[in-house]
């Protein structure tokens, strides 16, 4: 086990602080990055910020490890979670080589490597950090939730809005659209609730949790609300104390109240209930059944390596026509082009085959297991990790059933960062 940071030499401490600054800049900068007036206002700037800072992180880490044995020892990755992160990056590279559309897959290994490096960096550098490390995720999430609330209530728009845009679609935060905004806020909201339960004396955490829940409701998106509900249920299982059950119930009530009080959100749920009563699957799922069937078709054709990362959209047109042959009852006269399946389980299966999906599932199971295998300890960070890990894994799995968090930079940065905190705070290096 490496020595506590105070025992490192001064240059090493300065170097580790520099690396940590890069991690913080990535975790805060990526969800906030946007370029108003550009062709792609939200997604590309986030990708650019994340990839640039992650590559800097990799370059700085590699240079440090080459120039100093001490830094080399500290930066040695350890543990099964790190292995899964590296295996995911390696498998992305393999499936890119076997892709049916190599051009579409070409950039994906770089993204996977950057996420693996970001994860490993947080695991190594946050081991001895406390609540402040958690707050880093809450800063951009709270800013986005606040903007979402103001936009969805029509109080304030940070930029000029085209009046032809439907009311709901104007709620973008700094993320891009209401669905992506809700997808982004869900995991930080669960983390904020867990943190408020663990660090009870920090009353401001209650305000952060409430703000993030209101942000989720403001997105007027069904799946994020259901994902938060699933996470809260899981939290009562993971925690099991009376205080926690009350806290989870209060949070669930707050979410339901916020969703019911918000006019847009209320309308959206009313439409969902009316679709459910009609029993028509395409309408209930916002026409996502055919993309899902097309993804299954792709998986059936190439079960081992999939069609290649990023290739779903490139082959969707042909595969959807095949899926229609199998499910004619789902055909509708007008249909949209789906760039994503809107179900990450199926997209991972279709694009990277069974090994890719097993790695995804393995990562979720490994994270969830923290709640059950790590013994209880007085350390608040361990208590947070135990309380948050299983709900976070379940929330993400539910979210990935009808959204695509794995294809978006902002939700992935927050999720990967929080997962890494859970692993490192319950790992062997987590001394105070």
């Amino acid at each position, binding site marked *: 086990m490496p020595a506590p940071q105070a025992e490192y030499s001064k240059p090493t401490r300065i170097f580790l602080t520099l690396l940590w600054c890069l991690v913080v800049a990535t975790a805060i900068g990526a969800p906030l990055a946007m370029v108003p007036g550009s062709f792609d206002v939200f997604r590309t700037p986030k990708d650019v910020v994340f990839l640039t800072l992650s590559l800097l992180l990799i370059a700085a880490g590699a240079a440090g490890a080459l120039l100093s044995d001490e830094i080399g020892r500290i930066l040695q990755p350890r543990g099964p979670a790190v292995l899964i992160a590296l295996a995911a990056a390696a498998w992305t590279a393999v499936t890119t080589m076997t892709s049916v559309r190599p051009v579409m897959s070409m950039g994906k290994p770089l993204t996977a490597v950057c996420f693996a490096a970001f994860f490993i960096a947080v695991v190594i550098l946050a081991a001895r950090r406390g609540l402040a490390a958690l707050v880093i995720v809450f800063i951009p999430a709270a800013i986005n939730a606040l903007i979402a609330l103001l936009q969805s209530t029509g109080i304030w728009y940070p930029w000029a809005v085209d009046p032809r845009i439907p009311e709901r679609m104007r709620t973008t935060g700094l993320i891009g659209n209401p669905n992506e905004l809700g997808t982004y806020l869900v995991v930080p909201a669960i983390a904020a609730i867990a943190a408020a339960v663990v660090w009870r004396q920090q009353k401001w955490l209650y305000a952060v949790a409430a703000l993030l829940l209101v942000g989720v409701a403001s997105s007027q998106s069904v799946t994020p609300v259901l994902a938060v509900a699933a996470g809260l249920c899981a939290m009562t299982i993971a925690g099991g104390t009376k205080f926690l059950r009350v806290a989870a119930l209060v949070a669930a009530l707050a979410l339901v109240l916020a969703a019911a009080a918000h006019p847009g959100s209320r309308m959206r749920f009313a439409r969902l209930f009316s679709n459910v009563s009609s029993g028509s699957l395409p309408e209930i799922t916002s026409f996502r059944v055919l993309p899902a069937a097309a993804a299954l078709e792709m998986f059936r054709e190439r079960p081992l390596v999939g069609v290649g990362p990023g290739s779903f959209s490139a082959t969707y047109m042909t595969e959807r026509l095949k899926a229609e042959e199998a499910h004619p009852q789902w*055909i509708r006269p007008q249909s949209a082009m789906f760039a994503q399946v809107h179900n990450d389980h199926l997209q991972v299966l279709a694009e990277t085959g069974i090994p890719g999906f097993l790695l995804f599932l393995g990562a979720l199971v490994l994270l969830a297991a923290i709640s059950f295998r790590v013994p209880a300890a007085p350390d608040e960070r361990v208590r947070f990790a135990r309380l948050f890990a299983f709900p976070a894994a379940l929330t993400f799995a539910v979210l990935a059933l009808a959204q695509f968090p794995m294809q978006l930079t902002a939700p992935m940065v927050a999720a990967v960062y929080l997962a890494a905190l859970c692993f490192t705070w319950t790992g062997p290096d987590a001394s105070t």
Partner: protein
Amino acid sequence: MNREVRRSSRSGGEPIRMEQAQRNVLSCRRCLTTYPEDFQLQLLMGENLRILGNFEEALRSYERALATAERPEVYAQMAEIELERGRPDAARTLLRKAAMFDVRYAAVVDQPLRGEIEAEVLAREERLRREGRAQRAEGRR
């Protein structure tokens, strides 16, 4: 780039439109030397080549885009070019592909071709529904 070109077409400035399209093609060619496989650049170049009346090269550009990512609007745009070239059979084949995905693409052409394509799409859907019903009935038995 295309937004600018379309705007100038609405204002009726044909020479300006042509000049812009020419500039756009040059920009696309320059970008394609760095990103030869970018299908969106291929689409953009195809659209501008079409404005300039260079149909052969526009079609080749669209075909290169399709080799990377298959999209219904590309088939529809190719169908329009084939019509402009006076090849209705080729246009029908391309437009059928786009309309099978979304029947609204049939609206890019006038009657009677539009009606024929819509009828073909409806006939396919009807056939699939019939077969589906028969299969389900067989399954129940």
